[in-house]
């Protein structure tokens, strides 16, 4: 039974369409990723699922409750980690947990027990008396997670959780989320624009310009592309594309000026390609398909090609 259901969600900010008919389900206990560049609509979806924004049309349910009609019940079932920390840096970790718990009606003995429990689970027992502003980025994120677990949510929603973390802290966060899922059966739903983070999810929904362009397990999505990808940068891309297509009888895709050929056997293709076209090629990459390739194939453009000054929506 799905624990998160999204049915044909549309959302517009005035004339600008942020989400254009999105539907998917998340199974209980899953780690589900929403991958997309800035402006793809993933942040808007995040706000809808966390009850901060009612969708213009369509329906979304979390833990069996409608986000627009029963926001109170949804809020009681979710733990939310925002991109920017919601801890008060002037308070200690313990004070932040106390205030966090009271917002969920916890108090007294019950709150103390829960605080002990979550801080033990996240390894911050010895930090309860430290002011948040003195903590490292990784520890802050752990304290943030602890705060979100006090009321025992069944779904954790995380907005770009690895943003601002160093690689080590990122890895540690990944391990913690895994443990929460394995040991406590908590469903994890996160938005990301980081390919490595997306690769670690059980299933992935790829967003672009407000639309869901692909959904599935990362491995499955990459398998759909085929064996390997050869990416070619050539000064005269148009001419070379046509010639390669006729000479080698392969399909050459184009994305942002680069040529890409999907093939079962990359080495064999290269041995045919290089003798004839080697002098006209500026650079060349042979690779196993990545999620980036999946994105390019589904959308026809590179992942961050429009990332310029656009605001996350």
């Amino acid at each position, binding site marked *: 039974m799905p624990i998160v259901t999204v049915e044909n969600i549309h959302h517009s*900010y005035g004339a600008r369409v942020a989400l254009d008919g999105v539907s998917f389900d998340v199974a209980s206990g899953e780690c589900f990723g929403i991958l997309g560049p800035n402006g793809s609509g993933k942040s808007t979806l995040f*706000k809808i699922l*966390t*009850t*901060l*924004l009612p969708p213009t049309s369509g329906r979304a349910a979390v*833990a069996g*409750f409608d986000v627009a009609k029963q926001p*109170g*019940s949804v*809020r*009681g*079932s*979710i733990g*939310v980690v*925002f*991109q*920017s*920390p*919601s*801890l*008060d840096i*002037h*308070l200690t970790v313990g*004070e932040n947990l*106390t*205030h*966090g718990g*009271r*917002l*969920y*009606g*916890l*108090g007294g003995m019950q709150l103390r027990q829960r605080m002990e*429990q*979550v801080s*033990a*689970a*996240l*390894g911050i027992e010895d930090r309860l008396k430290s*002011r948040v502003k003195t903590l490292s980025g990784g520890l802050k994120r752990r304290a943030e997670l602890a*705060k979100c*677990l006090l*009321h*025992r*949510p*069944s779904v954790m929603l995380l907005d770009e959780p690895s943003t601002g973390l160093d690689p080590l802290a990122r890895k540690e966060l990944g*391990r*913690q989320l895994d*443990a*929460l899922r394995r*040991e*406590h*059966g*908590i469903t994890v739903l996160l938005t990301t624009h980081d390919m490595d983070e997306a690769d670690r999810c059980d299933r992935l929904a790829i967003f672009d310009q407000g639309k869901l362009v692909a959904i599935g397990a990362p491995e499955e999505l990459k398998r759909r592309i085929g064996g390997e990808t050869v990416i070619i940068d050539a000064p005269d891309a148009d001419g070379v594309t046509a010639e390669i297509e006729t000479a080698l009888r392969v399909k050459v895709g184009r994305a942002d000026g680069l040529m890409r050929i999907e093939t079962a056997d990359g080495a064999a293709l290269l041995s045919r390609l290089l003798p004839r076209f080697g002098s006209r090629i500026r650079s060349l990459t042979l690779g196993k398909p990545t999620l980036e390739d999946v994105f390019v194939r589904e959308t026809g453009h590179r992942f961050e090609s429009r990332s310029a000054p656009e*605001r996350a*929506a």
Partner: protein
Amino acid sequence: MTSATPNAPPLTDSTRRDPTIAPGLCRPALSLAQREIVRFLRQRSRILGALGTPLVFWFIVGGGLGRSFSLSDGPQNISYMEYTFPGALAAILLFTAIFSMISIIDDRREGFMQGVLVAPVSRLAIVLGKVAGASILATGQATLFLSLAPLAEIPLGVVAVVFTVAAMLLVAVGLTAMGFWLAWLMESTQGFHAIMNAVLMPMLILSGAFFPPEGAATVLRWLTYANPMTYSVALLRHGLHSGRAVALPEIVGIWPALGVTVGFAIAMLGLSSFVATRQSARTLQ
């Protein structure tokens, strides 16, 4: 993760059928108010500001304005310093209230308030918590200024102090709630400053705090009587003079002053709670 212990209790509650949590009004509101005060006391610069502003205010009003002006149409039996003292209290309450609400604008986009908004707390509890915390801080700061009254040769009895502090708290609740409402409607702190210049400054000046409305042009007189701040200043004035016979020309009687101040506070709390419920995220695109 240290939760490898085999019998660690689960962090999620699969047996719970109804996740509807009703934390009520008091616990979250008190918690938010407490947080507001604790974080104030932890920021040295804010404490210095709170102590410094009233002093600066007093030097300007007492040392500057007080020596340059006299009241031609106003009461002759009190000094200008004494006449403007309630206005100075109101100004401190207004600015402290407004400044402590500015943080809401940024907090809602990134920070503490986001975490509060996704909790199953009624929006009224959020308003009450923020307003209670900020009102206590504003009243505390104004009380410091009040303690300077004897230096301005304004006699203060125990009754007057009690009545004035109670009045300040009441006035602060209305002003802080107004600050909450305005802050919630704003998309940027710049917008908030514009509102401050266009609305809040005139509110303060046309409150009968600095000149008696009787001597002003008709339009200004009407604006003064339509201004809720006038009644707040009047209430503070009544507070300061309670227990003492002073022949002040009463701009506003004590009961209208109290009634309008209470009514304003209730209206602003309602308005704040309404906008917070209606648009948790409208401006958060």
